[in-house]
């Protein structure tokens, strides 16, 4: 199945979908990991259903962001440190996510950047465990249940 979205951060990635219906607070998700001298992508927000999950090899599928205005910068720094998800598909973008993406594009030149795509219907077409390929605004979903 293929769907199209709007590019927020241009790129190409594939991985296993991790789907959450709960908005993601990137400050709470990554602040602890960023302070650590080693790399871990485990979500440190214990109010979130993805608490403890390492998303480094995943495509994160979420409804939107929540929380602190530092959120975009925490995502930016997670990308810089190499602990962000491989890609993000979100039903809705907000200014924090867009600014994080633009800043990554402008100021983290030499790094591999995870694609971020806005796609309003995404939550109804993906389940955790599906394989997702993102190329620019195109999202290809291979269902893990085979249908």
């Amino acid at each position, binding site marked *: 199945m293929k769907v199209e979205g709007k590019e927020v951060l241009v790129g190409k990635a594939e991985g296993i979908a991790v789907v959450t219906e709960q*908005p993601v607070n990137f400050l*709470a998700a990554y602040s602890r990991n960023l302070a650590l001298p080693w790399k871990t992508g485990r979500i440190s927000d214990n109010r979130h259903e993805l608490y403890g999950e390492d998303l480094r090899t995943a495509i994160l599928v979420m409804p939107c*962001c929540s*929380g602190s205005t530092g959120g975009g910068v925490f995502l930016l720094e997670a990308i810089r440190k190499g602990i962000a998800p491989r890609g993000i598909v979100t039903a809705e973008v907000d200014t924090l996510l867009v*600014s994080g993406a633009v800043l990554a594009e402008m100021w983290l030149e030499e790094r591999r950047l995870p694609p971020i795509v806005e796609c309003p219907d995404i939550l109804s077409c993906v389940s955790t465990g599906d394989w997702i390929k993102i190329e620019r605004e195109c999202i290809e979903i291979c269902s893990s249940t085979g249908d």
Partner: protein
Amino acid sequence: MNLSSEHEAILAGRKGKTLQKCMETLVRYGQFYQAETLVPIQSAHLVMSCGSILFKTYLDIVSHLTRERIQFAVPTTVNPHFTTDNPGVIQRYILKKDKTFREHFRELGGIETYSCTPYLCGNVPRKGDVIAWAESSAVIYANAVLGAKTNRNSGIIDLISAVLGVTPSTGLLLDENRKGTVEVVVEAEIEKEAYAVLGYVIGKVIQNKIPFIRGLHGSDDEFKNMGAAMAASGGVGLYHVDGITPEARALGEDMLRDDAETVVITDEILSKQKEELSAGLNRADMVFIGCPHLSYSELVHISTLLEGATVRRGVNLWVNTSKHVMQEFVDSEYGASFQRTGATLVSLCPLALFETPRLRKWEIVTNSGKMRYYAPVYYASLNRCLEEATGGVNHEG
């Protein structure tokens, strides 16, 4: 995007490479939202004053700016430090770039308020002013209570806007995007202390919508605490209070969209939420009041409640405010009696402070909905917090 010739010149690199990249960042950000132009701002407020090792990109950009001797184009204030005056080993590790950031901020011509309440430290926007503020609790206060216009940006966008003196005309800067998108009817009697819990519930329920709230009669301080909680548990950047906040007062029902859905907040919802936020509190080792920083009148209120009491042994009562307000309070008639209570006045940001292993062992209680959201702490009303600190026996609140 329509750019002035001056902005075109910056974009073409005629004012150096760093400003060119800054301008390109703002333009690309604006283009995503089809912003037609960059509009002048009156002031800026920045976060991440700690310059901690967490924010490498931020510090990179700041270093580039100071190397080229660039200065802020508008008055620019900054958020509090994350540390106490005697940071432990881990705090020192996390904050080793703190000093560097302070020096850079000074070189850029920043106003060193180090507070999350710039509007209580002289950076007070007027109704209708366009500003570029970071700090979610200050953004929502400026938009809702002061009627100024700012988006919820990532702090770095605000840094860049501060340097260029402009910001893309999009989002909450446009009148058509400032109407309430959800009607929130509060069918509960909201006591002074319940505003933080109310904000927490509203944020959780409506997420990133704009609430038009009916049934409130709070003060600016109460709205400060409500907004801070709302901006943490949800992504709220603006709210209106029927008959009270500037835009609702000026335009009434026109500030609520016709297609807005309605959410009702009852006593039951509030007490359930309060219970959830306080669950597990046993006996506090530390009581923390003041997230966001307290206003002068809140300090006076606390000092009146504490009159004649002293903080019991083995408990810390930290009362957090800006250096600006702290000075005013210490010099006031309340200063001396407050100090006799054994409470400690501090000026910092508590959100990351209690993550360090040494402090994690403490059982911490606060009346702040925002702090309850971000830090490993329990919530209790102000009265109950102060009873925990002084050993009062009434545990009803």
